[in-house]
Protein backbone atom coordinates (compact mmCIF):
# COMPACT_ATOMS: atom_id res chain seq x y z
CA UNK A 1 0.00 0.00 0.00
CA UNK A 2 1.12 3.51 -0.74
CA UNK A 3 -0.18 6.53 1.20
CA UNK A 4 0.26 9.11 -1.53
CA UNK A 5 -1.59 7.05 -4.14
CA UNK A 6 -4.33 6.02 -1.67
CA UNK A 7 -5.00 9.61 -0.60
CA UNK A 8 -4.76 10.83 -4.20
CA UNK A 9 -7.50 8.33 -5.06
CA UNK A 10 -9.66 9.33 -2.10
CA UNK A 11 -9.23 12.99 -3.05
CA UNK A 12 -10.13 12.27 -6.64
CA UNK A 13 -13.34 10.44 -5.64
CA UNK A 14 -14.36 13.35 -3.37
CA UNK A 15 -13.58 15.83 -6.15
CA UNK A 16 -15.83 13.85 -8.49
CA UNK A 17 -18.55 13.97 -5.85
CA UNK A 18 -18.15 17.73 -5.48
CA UNK A 19 -19.20 18.07 -9.12
CA UNK A 20 -22.39 16.18 -8.30
CA UNK A 21 -24.39 18.17 -5.71
CA UNK A 22 -27.45 15.98 -6.12
CA UNK A 23 -25.61 12.88 -4.91
CA UNK A 24 -24.22 14.84 -1.97
CA UNK A 25 -27.75 15.94 -1.07
CA UNK A 26 -28.95 12.35 -1.35
CA UNK A 27 -26.19 11.13 0.91
CA UNK A 28 -26.43 13.82 3.56
CA UNK A 29 -30.13 14.70 3.69
CA UNK A 30 -32.07 11.62 2.55
CA UNK A 31 -31.52 9.51 5.70
CA UNK A 32 -32.69 12.42 7.92
CA UNK A 33 -35.82 12.82 5.80
CA UNK A 34 -36.63 9.12 6.15
CA UNK A 35 -36.06 9.22 9.90
CA UNK A 36 -38.31 12.27 10.07
CA UNK A 37 -41.01 10.52 8.06
CA UNK A 38 -40.82 7.59 10.42
CA UNK A 39 -41.07 9.79 13.49
CA UNK A 40 -44.08 11.57 12.00
CA UNK A 41 -45.77 8.25 11.14
CA UNK A 42 -45.70 7.19 14.80
CA UNK A 43 -46.16 10.65 16.29
CA UNK A 44 -49.53 9.68 17.84
CA UNK A 45 -48.25 6.44 19.36
CA UNK A 46 -46.13 6.97 22.42
CA UNK A 47 -42.81 5.13 22.61
CA UNK A 48 -42.95 3.46 19.18
CA UNK A 49 -40.43 5.80 17.60
CA UNK A 50 -38.15 5.38 20.61
CA UNK A 51 -38.22 1.60 20.01
CA UNK A 52 -37.79 1.65 16.23
CA UNK A 53 -36.00 4.96 15.75
CA UNK A 54 -32.63 3.54 16.72
CA UNK A 55 -32.65 0.55 14.38
CA UNK A 56 -33.93 2.80 11.58
CA UNK A 57 -30.88 4.93 12.21
CA UNK A 58 -28.74 1.85 11.51
CA UNK A 59 -30.65 1.04 8.36
CA UNK A 60 -30.83 4.12 6.17
CA UNK A 61 -27.15 5.09 6.13
CA UNK A 62 -26.35 1.46 5.34
CA UNK A 63 -28.74 1.35 2.38
CA UNK A 64 -27.83 4.75 0.97
CA UNK A 65 -24.08 4.12 1.15
CA UNK A 66 -24.47 0.63 -0.34
CA UNK A 67 -26.28 2.03 -3.37
CA UNK A 68 -23.99 4.98 -3.98
CA UNK A 69 -20.78 3.04 -3.53
CA UNK A 70 -21.72 0.06 -5.66
CA UNK A 71 -22.83 2.21 -8.59
CA UNK A 72 -19.91 4.64 -8.45
CA UNK A 73 -17.35 1.84 -8.34
CA UNK A 74 -19.11 -0.03 -11.08
CA UNK A 75 -18.92 3.06 -13.26
CA UNK A 76 -15.15 3.09 -12.74
CA UNK A 77 -14.88 -0.59 -13.60
CA UNK A 78 -16.86 -0.11 -16.80
CA UNK A 79 -15.56 3.19 -18.10
CA UNK A 80 -12.03 2.03 -18.94
CA UNK A 81 -10.47 4.20 -16.25
CA UNK A 82 -9.94 1.14 -14.03
CA UNK A 83 -8.10 -0.61 -16.86
CA UNK A 84 -5.90 2.44 -17.25
CA UNK A 85 -5.30 2.63 -13.47
CA UNK A 86 -4.18 -1.00 -13.57
CA UNK A 87 -1.34 0.00 -15.92
CA UNK A 88 -0.08 2.59 -13.38
CA UNK A 89 1.78 1.93 -10.11
CA UNK A 90 -1.56 2.18 -8.21
CA UNK A 91 -2.03 -0.94 -6.08
CA UNK A 92 -5.35 -2.76 -5.77
CA UNK A 93 -5.48 -2.03 -2.05
CA UNK A 94 -4.68 1.65 -2.74
CA UNK A 95 -7.70 1.76 -5.02
CA UNK A 96 -10.13 0.04 -2.63
CA UNK A 97 -8.94 1.87 0.48
CA UNK A 98 -9.00 5.17 -1.43
CA UNK A 99 -12.67 4.60 -2.24
CA UNK A 100 -13.42 3.44 1.31
CA UNK A 101 -11.75 6.57 2.76
CA UNK A 102 -13.67 8.94 0.50
CA UNK A 103 -17.06 7.35 1.10
CA UNK A 104 -16.17 6.74 4.75
CA UNK A 105 -15.76 10.48 5.18
CA UNK A 106 -19.16 11.06 3.57
CA UNK A 107 -20.60 8.34 5.81
CA UNK A 108 -19.24 10.13 8.84
CA UNK A 109 -20.85 13.44 7.85
CA UNK A 110 -24.06 11.60 7.09
CA UNK A 111 -24.06 9.87 10.49
CA UNK A 112 -23.51 13.12 12.37
CA UNK A 113 -26.33 14.85 10.51
CA UNK A 114 -28.77 11.93 10.82
CA UNK A 115 -28.14 11.32 14.52
CA UNK A 116 -28.39 15.04 15.26
CA UNK A 117 -31.67 15.26 13.35
CA UNK A 118 -33.12 12.17 15.04
CA UNK A 119 -32.27 13.38 18.53
CA UNK A 120 -32.73 17.15 18.26
CA UNK A 121 -35.64 17.42 15.82
CA UNK A 122 -37.44 14.08 16.15
CA UNK A 123 -36.77 13.85 19.91
CA UNK A 124 -35.44 10.31 19.76
CA UNK A 125 -34.90 9.08 23.32
CA UNK A 126 -31.45 7.56 23.73
CA UNK A 127 -30.29 6.17 27.08
CA UNK A 128 -26.62 5.73 26.12
CA UNK A 129 -24.19 8.50 25.15
CA UNK A 130 -24.89 10.19 21.81
CA UNK A 131 -21.35 9.76 20.49
CA UNK A 132 -21.83 6.01 20.70
CA UNK A 133 -24.94 6.23 18.56
CA UNK A 134 -22.96 8.34 16.10
CA UNK A 135 -20.16 5.76 16.08
CA UNK A 136 -22.59 2.94 15.38
CA UNK A 137 -24.16 4.92 12.53
CA UNK A 138 -20.71 5.57 11.03
CA UNK A 139 -19.70 1.91 11.25
CA UNK A 140 -23.02 0.88 9.66
CA UNK A 141 -22.53 3.32 6.81
CA UNK A 142 -18.99 1.98 6.36
CA UNK A 143 -20.42 -1.52 6.19
CA UNK A 144 -22.74 -0.32 3.41
CA UNK A 145 -19.73 1.18 1.62
CA UNK A 146 -17.68 -2.01 1.96
CA UNK A 147 -20.51 -4.27 0.79
CA UNK A 148 -21.20 -1.88 -2.08
CA UNK A 149 -17.57 -2.09 -3.20
CA UNK A 150 -17.76 -5.86 -3.07
CA UNK A 151 -21.13 -6.06 -4.86
CA UNK A 152 -19.83 -3.92 -7.71
CA UNK A 153 -17.38 -6.71 -8.55
CA UNK A 154 -20.23 -9.07 -9.32
CA UNK A 155 -22.34 -6.73 -11.41
CA UNK A 156 -21.72 -6.03 -15.07
CA UNK A 157 -24.13 -3.12 -15.39
CA UNK A 158 -25.64 -0.45 -13.16
CA UNK A 159 -28.95 -2.25 -13.59
CA UNK A 160 -27.50 -5.42 -12.09
CA UNK A 161 -25.93 -3.44 -9.25
CA UNK A 162 -29.32 -2.10 -8.23
CA UNK A 163 -30.68 -5.66 -8.40
CA UNK A 164 -28.36 -6.55 -5.52
CA UNK A 165 -30.60 -4.49 -3.23
CA UNK A 166 -33.37 -7.14 -3.02
CA UNK A 167 -30.81 -9.96 -2.91
CA UNK A 168 -28.21 -8.65 -0.47
CA UNK A 169 -29.93 -5.89 1.46
CA UNK A 170 -33.64 -6.68 1.88
CA UNK A 171 -33.14 -10.12 3.52
CA UNK A 172 -30.82 -8.47 6.02
CA UNK A 173 -33.49 -5.90 6.83
CA UNK A 174 -36.20 -8.55 7.24
CA UNK A 175 -34.04 -10.81 9.42
CA UNK A 176 -32.22 -8.00 11.22
CA UNK A 177 -34.54 -7.88 14.22
CA UNK A 178 -36.42 -4.77 13.18
CA UNK A 179 -39.73 -6.53 12.46
CA UNK A 180 -39.36 -9.24 15.05
CA UNK A 181 -36.85 -9.64 17.88
CA UNK A 182 -34.26 -12.11 16.65
CA UNK A 183 -34.63 -14.52 19.58
CA UNK A 184 -38.31 -15.05 18.72
CA UNK A 185 -37.59 -16.09 15.11
CA UNK A 186 -37.76 -19.72 13.94
CA UNK A 187 -34.46 -21.39 14.84
CA UNK A 188 -33.16 -21.64 11.28
CA UNK A 189 -33.86 -17.98 10.55
CA UNK A 190 -32.31 -16.97 13.88
CA UNK A 191 -29.17 -18.90 12.96
CA UNK A 192 -29.08 -17.26 9.54
CA UNK A 193 -29.57 -13.81 11.04
CA UNK A 194 -26.51 -14.40 13.24
CA UNK A 195 -24.44 -14.46 10.06
CA UNK A 196 -25.86 -11.26 8.60
CA UNK A 197 -23.88 -8.12 9.46
CA UNK A 198 -26.92 -5.84 9.60
CA UNK A 199 -28.37 -7.92 12.48
CA UNK A 200 -25.36 -6.98 14.58
CA UNK A 201 -25.56 -3.38 13.43
CA UNK A 202 -29.15 -3.23 14.68
CA UNK A 203 -28.10 -5.00 17.91
CA UNK A 204 -25.47 -2.33 18.46
CA UNK A 205 -27.95 0.52 18.01
CA UNK A 206 -30.47 -1.21 20.25
CA UNK A 207 -27.80 -1.65 22.92
CA UNK A 208 -26.84 2.03 22.84
CA UNK A 209 -30.48 3.14 22.83
CA UNK A 210 -31.18 0.94 25.87
CA UNK A 211 -28.19 2.38 27.71
CA UNK A 212 -26.17 -0.84 27.73
CA UNK A 213 -22.46 -0.45 28.25
CA UNK A 214 -19.17 -2.16 27.63
CA UNK A 215 -19.14 -5.50 25.86
CA UNK A 216 -22.87 -5.36 24.98
CA UNK A 217 -22.11 -2.42 22.71
CA UNK A 218 -18.56 -3.32 21.73
CA UNK A 219 -19.29 -6.91 20.67
CA UNK A 220 -21.83 -6.19 17.87
CA UNK A 221 -19.79 -3.18 16.84
CA UNK A 222 -16.66 -5.33 16.46
CA UNK A 223 -18.59 -7.91 14.46
CA UNK A 224 -19.87 -5.25 12.06
CA UNK A 225 -16.36 -3.81 11.73
CA UNK A 226 -14.99 -7.28 10.96
CA UNK A 227 -17.61 -7.73 8.23
CA UNK A 228 -16.72 -4.33 6.76
CA UNK A 229 -12.98 -5.05 6.74
CA UNK A 230 -13.58 -8.55 5.36
CA UNK A 231 -15.68 -7.12 2.51
CA UNK A 232 -12.95 -4.59 1.69
CA UNK A 233 -10.31 -7.32 1.55
CA UNK A 234 -12.56 -9.48 -0.65
CA UNK A 235 -13.32 -6.48 -2.87
CA UNK A 236 -9.63 -5.81 -3.46
CA UNK A 237 -9.11 -9.50 -4.24
CA UNK A 238 -11.78 -9.28 -6.95
CA UNK A 239 -9.81 -6.60 -8.78
CA UNK A 240 -7.83 -8.05 -11.65
CA UNK A 241 -4.99 -6.39 -13.50
CA UNK A 242 -5.44 -8.77 -16.40
CA UNK A 243 -8.91 -9.22 -17.85
CA UNK A 244 -10.11 -11.43 -20.72
Amino acid sequence: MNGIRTFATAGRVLRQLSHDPRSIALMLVAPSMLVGLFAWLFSDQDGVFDTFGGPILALFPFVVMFLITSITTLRERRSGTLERLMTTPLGKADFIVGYALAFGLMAMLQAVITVAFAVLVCRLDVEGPLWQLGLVAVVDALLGTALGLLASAFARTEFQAVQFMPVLVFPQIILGGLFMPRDRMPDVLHAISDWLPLSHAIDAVAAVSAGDEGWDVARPLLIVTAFAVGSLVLASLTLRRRTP
Partner: protein
Amino acid sequence: MGIRPRSGEEAVVVRDLRVRRGGTPVFEGLDVAIPRGRITGLLGPSGCGKTTLMRAIVGVQKIDGGSVTVFGEPAGGVSLRRRVAYDTQAASVYGDLTVRQNLSYFARLIGAPRGDVDRVIEQVGLRPQAGQTVASLSGGQENRVSLAVAMLGSPELIVLDEPTVGLDPVLRAELWAVFRALAATGVTLVISSHVMDEALRCDRLLLMRAGRLVADTTPAALLADTGESDPDAAFLALIERGTAG
Protein backbone atom coordinates in the same frame (compact mmCIF):
# COMPACT_ATOMS: atom_id res chain seq x y z
CA MET B 1 14.86 11.20 -20.00
CA GLY B 2 15.84 10.39 -23.54
CA ILE B 3 18.29 7.56 -23.59
CA ARG B 4 19.21 6.99 -27.21
CA PRO B 5 18.58 3.38 -28.12
CA ARG B 6 21.36 1.19 -29.29
CA SER B 7 20.57 0.06 -32.80
CA GLY B 8 18.80 -3.25 -33.14
CA GLU B 9 17.48 -3.19 -29.59
CA GLU B 10 13.87 -4.24 -29.23
CA ALA B 11 11.43 -2.47 -26.90
CA VAL B 12 8.78 -5.18 -27.17
CA VAL B 13 9.18 -8.83 -28.07
CA VAL B 14 6.07 -10.96 -28.52
CA ARG B 15 6.62 -14.71 -28.87
CA ASP B 16 4.01 -17.27 -29.83
CA LEU B 17 1.22 -15.19 -28.27
CA ARG B 18 -2.08 -16.96 -27.91
CA VAL B 19 -5.20 -15.10 -26.77
CA ARG B 20 -8.85 -16.06 -26.76
CA ARG B 21 -11.62 -13.54 -26.22
CA GLY B 22 -15.19 -14.62 -25.67
CA GLY B 23 -14.36 -18.19 -26.72
CA THR B 24 -12.92 -17.29 -30.12
CA PRO B 25 -9.17 -17.18 -30.72
CA VAL B 26 -7.74 -13.73 -31.47
CA PHE B 27 -4.11 -14.81 -31.75
CA GLU B 28 -2.90 -18.33 -32.39
CA GLY B 29 0.84 -17.94 -32.05
CA LEU B 30 1.68 -14.33 -32.90
CA ASP B 31 5.32 -13.22 -33.11
CA VAL B 32 6.09 -9.49 -33.19
CA ALA B 33 9.10 -7.34 -32.39
CA ILE B 34 8.88 -3.57 -31.90
CA PRO B 35 12.09 -1.51 -32.17
CA ARG B 36 13.13 1.02 -29.55
CA GLY B 37 12.99 4.77 -30.09
CA ARG B 38 10.79 4.52 -33.17
CA ILE B 39 7.18 5.15 -34.01
CA THR B 40 5.61 1.82 -34.90
CA GLY B 41 2.23 1.95 -36.56
CA LEU B 42 -0.22 -0.86 -35.93
CA LEU B 43 -2.61 -0.96 -38.84
CA GLY B 44 -5.44 -3.12 -39.94
CA PRO B 45 -9.21 -3.30 -40.14
CA SER B 46 -11.37 -3.15 -37.06
CA GLY B 47 -11.39 -6.48 -35.24
CA CYS B 48 -7.97 -7.61 -36.47
CA GLY B 49 -6.48 -7.71 -32.97
CA LYS B 50 -4.79 -4.30 -32.67
CA THR B 51 -6.34 -3.48 -29.31
CA THR B 52 -5.76 -6.98 -27.94
CA LEU B 53 -2.07 -6.78 -28.89
CA MET B 54 -1.77 -3.37 -27.22
CA ARG B 55 -3.50 -4.63 -24.07
CA ALA B 56 -1.07 -7.56 -24.00
CA ILE B 57 1.89 -5.18 -24.30
CA VAL B 58 0.74 -3.04 -21.36
CA GLY B 59 -0.10 -6.18 -19.37
CA VAL B 60 -3.86 -5.95 -18.87
CA GLN B 61 -4.80 -8.69 -21.33
CA LYS B 62 -5.24 -12.20 -20.00
CA ILE B 63 -3.17 -14.41 -22.28
CA ASP B 64 -3.49 -18.13 -22.93
CA GLY B 65 0.09 -18.80 -23.97
CA GLY B 66 3.33 -17.39 -25.26
CA SER B 67 5.19 -14.42 -23.82
CA VAL B 68 5.24 -10.64 -24.08
CA THR B 69 8.46 -8.96 -22.98
CA VAL B 70 8.88 -5.20 -22.60
CA PHE B 71 12.40 -3.83 -22.10
CA GLY B 72 13.50 -7.34 -21.20
CA GLU B 73 10.85 -7.79 -18.47
CA PRO B 74 7.51 -9.60 -18.52
CA ALA B 75 4.76 -7.20 -19.70
CA GLY B 76 2.78 -5.56 -16.90
CA GLY B 77 5.51 -6.05 -14.26
CA VAL B 78 5.66 -3.62 -11.34
CA SER B 79 8.81 -1.85 -12.54
CA LEU B 80 7.24 -1.30 -15.97
CA ARG B 81 4.18 0.56 -14.71
CA ARG B 82 6.05 3.86 -14.56
CA ARG B 83 7.93 3.27 -17.82
CA VAL B 84 4.94 2.29 -19.95
CA ALA B 85 1.97 4.56 -20.66
CA TYR B 86 -1.26 3.47 -22.29
CA ASP B 87 -4.19 5.31 -23.81
CA THR B 88 -7.24 3.19 -24.47
CA GLN B 89 -9.37 3.63 -27.55
CA ALA B 90 -12.37 5.12 -25.76
CA ALA B 91 -11.22 8.07 -23.67
CA SER B 92 -10.38 6.68 -20.23
CA VAL B 93 -10.64 9.78 -18.07
CA TYR B 94 -13.21 10.96 -15.54
CA GLY B 95 -16.06 12.88 -17.17
CA ASP B 96 -17.05 14.58 -13.93
CA LEU B 97 -13.60 16.04 -13.28
CA THR B 98 -12.00 19.00 -15.03
CA VAL B 99 -9.16 18.50 -17.49
CA ARG B 100 -6.65 19.72 -14.92
CA GLN B 101 -8.10 17.60 -12.07
CA ASN B 102 -7.88 14.48 -14.25
CA LEU B 103 -4.26 15.13 -15.13
CA SER B 104 -3.28 16.04 -11.56
CA TYR B 105 -4.67 12.74 -10.30
CA PHE B 106 -2.80 10.60 -12.81
CA ALA B 107 0.36 12.70 -12.32
CA ARG B 108 0.29 11.90 -8.60
CA LEU B 109 -0.22 8.20 -9.27
CA ILE B 110 2.86 7.91 -11.45
CA GLY B 111 4.84 10.45 -9.44
CA ALA B 112 5.24 12.92 -12.31
CA PRO B 113 6.61 16.38 -11.48
CA ARG B 114 4.06 19.16 -10.88
CA GLY B 115 4.87 21.14 -13.98
CA ASP B 116 4.01 18.15 -16.13
CA VAL B 117 0.28 18.84 -16.00
CA ASP B 118 0.69 22.20 -17.71
CA ARG B 119 3.17 20.80 -20.20
CA VAL B 120 0.83 18.08 -21.46
CA ILE B 121 -2.21 20.40 -21.47
CA GLU B 122 -0.17 22.67 -23.76
CA GLN B 123 0.97 19.74 -25.91
CA VAL B 124 -2.56 18.59 -26.69
CA GLY B 125 -3.79 22.16 -27.15
CA LEU B 126 -6.36 22.22 -24.35
CA ARG B 127 -5.22 25.26 -22.39
CA PRO B 128 -8.49 27.19 -22.87
CA GLN B 129 -10.46 24.15 -21.62
CA ALA B 130 -8.21 23.26 -18.67
CA GLY B 131 -10.83 24.29 -16.08
CA GLN B 132 -13.79 22.63 -17.82
CA THR B 133 -15.19 19.25 -16.88
CA VAL B 134 -14.36 16.56 -19.41
CA ALA B 135 -18.07 15.78 -19.85
CA SER B 136 -18.58 19.29 -21.25
CA LEU B 137 -15.93 18.81 -23.96
CA SER B 138 -16.39 17.51 -27.49
CA GLY B 139 -15.49 13.91 -28.29
CA GLY B 140 -12.22 14.91 -29.93
CA GLN B 141 -11.23 17.10 -26.98
CA GLU B 142 -12.07 14.28 -24.57
CA ASN B 143 -9.76 11.97 -26.51
CA ARG B 144 -7.01 14.55 -26.23
CA VAL B 145 -7.36 14.67 -22.43
CA SER B 146 -6.98 10.90 -22.42
CA LEU B 147 -3.95 11.18 -24.69
CA ALA B 148 -2.42 13.84 -22.43
CA VAL B 149 -2.54 11.39 -19.49
CA ALA B 150 -0.33 9.01 -21.46
CA MET B 151 2.28 11.75 -21.95
CA LEU B 152 2.64 12.54 -18.22
CA GLY B 153 5.95 11.75 -16.56
CA SER B 154 8.68 10.35 -18.75
CA PRO B 155 7.45 7.02 -20.09
CA GLU B 156 9.86 5.09 -22.29
CA LEU B 157 7.09 3.26 -24.14
CA ILE B 158 3.81 4.96 -25.05
CA VAL B 159 1.04 2.76 -26.40
CA LEU B 160 -1.76 4.73 -28.07
CA ASP B 161 -4.92 3.09 -29.36
CA GLU B 162 -6.30 5.22 -32.21
CA PRO B 163 -5.31 8.54 -30.62
CA THR B 164 -6.23 10.73 -33.58
CA VAL B 165 -9.76 9.47 -34.29
CA GLY B 166 -12.20 12.31 -34.88
CA LEU B 167 -9.58 15.05 -34.92
CA ASP B 168 -9.34 17.71 -37.60
CA PRO B 169 -6.32 17.52 -39.93
CA VAL B 170 -4.55 20.52 -38.35
CA LEU B 171 -4.71 19.03 -34.89
CA ARG B 172 -3.73 15.63 -36.19
CA ALA B 173 -0.63 17.11 -37.77
CA GLU B 174 0.21 18.91 -34.50
CA LEU B 175 -0.11 15.70 -32.50
CA TRP B 176 2.08 13.81 -34.94
CA ALA B 177 4.68 16.54 -34.46
CA VAL B 178 4.50 15.86 -30.70
CA PHE B 179 4.85 12.11 -31.30
CA ARG B 180 7.81 12.73 -33.57
CA ALA B 181 9.47 14.96 -30.96
CA LEU B 182 8.98 12.26 -28.30
CA ALA B 183 10.52 9.64 -30.57
CA ALA B 184 13.48 11.96 -31.18
CA THR B 185 14.25 11.84 -27.45
CA GLY B 186 14.35 8.05 -27.55
CA VAL B 187 10.75 7.26 -26.55
CA THR B 188 9.21 4.23 -28.23
CA LEU B 189 5.70 4.78 -29.55
CA VAL B 190 3.18 2.19 -30.67
CA ILE B 191 0.25 3.83 -32.38
CA SER B 192 -2.74 2.02 -33.84
CA SER B 193 -4.89 3.43 -36.55
CA HIS B 194 -7.27 2.29 -39.20
CA VAL B 195 -6.64 5.45 -41.19
CA MET B 196 -4.11 4.28 -43.74
CA ASP B 197 -2.71 7.72 -44.58
CA GLU B 198 -1.34 7.91 -41.04
CA ALA B 199 0.78 4.90 -41.89
CA LEU B 200 3.14 7.12 -43.87
CA ARG B 201 4.06 9.07 -40.74
CA CYS B 202 5.41 6.00 -38.92
CA ASP B 203 8.95 4.64 -38.95
CA ARG B 204 7.78 1.07 -39.01
CA LEU B 205 4.53 -0.58 -39.94
CA LEU B 206 2.88 -3.69 -38.66
CA LEU B 207 -0.05 -4.59 -40.85
CA MET B 208 -2.49 -6.95 -39.22
CA ARG B 209 -5.48 -8.86 -40.42
CA ALA B 210 -7.61 -11.43 -38.59
CA GLY B 211 -5.10 -11.90 -35.80
CA ARG B 212 -2.13 -12.42 -38.10
CA LEU B 213 0.76 -10.17 -39.06
CA VAL B 214 0.39 -9.51 -42.78
CA ALA B 215 3.51 -7.39 -43.06
CA ASP B 216 6.33 -5.97 -40.92
CA THR B 217 7.72 -3.22 -43.06
CA THR B 218 8.41 0.51 -43.48
CA PRO B 219 6.16 3.00 -45.30
CA ALA B 220 8.63 3.38 -48.17
CA ALA B 221 9.13 -0.36 -48.52
CA LEU B 222 5.37 -0.96 -48.43
CA LEU B 223 4.76 1.40 -51.33
CA ALA B 224 7.79 0.25 -53.32
CA ASP B 225 6.99 -3.38 -52.74
CA THR B 226 3.42 -3.17 -53.97
CA GLY B 227 3.96 -0.52 -56.61
CA GLU B 228 1.05 1.48 -55.26
CA SER B 229 1.05 5.19 -54.46
CA ASP B 230 -1.36 5.25 -51.53
CA PRO B 231 -1.22 3.04 -48.46
CA ASP B 232 -4.84 1.91 -48.73
CA ALA B 233 -4.23 0.35 -52.11
CA ALA B 234 -0.93 -1.07 -50.91
CA PHE B 235 -2.66 -2.77 -48.00
CA LEU B 236 -5.25 -4.28 -50.33
CA ALA B 237 -2.52 -5.47 -52.68
CA LEU B 238 -0.75 -7.18 -49.78
CA ILE B 239 -3.91 -8.95 -48.69
CA GLU B 240 -4.67 -10.12 -52.22
CA ARG B 241 -1.14 -11.42 -52.49
CA GLY B 242 -1.60 -13.19 -49.16
CA THR B 243 -4.82 -14.92 -50.15
CA ALA B 244 -3.49 -15.84 -53.60
CA GLY B 245 -0.33 -17.39 -52.21
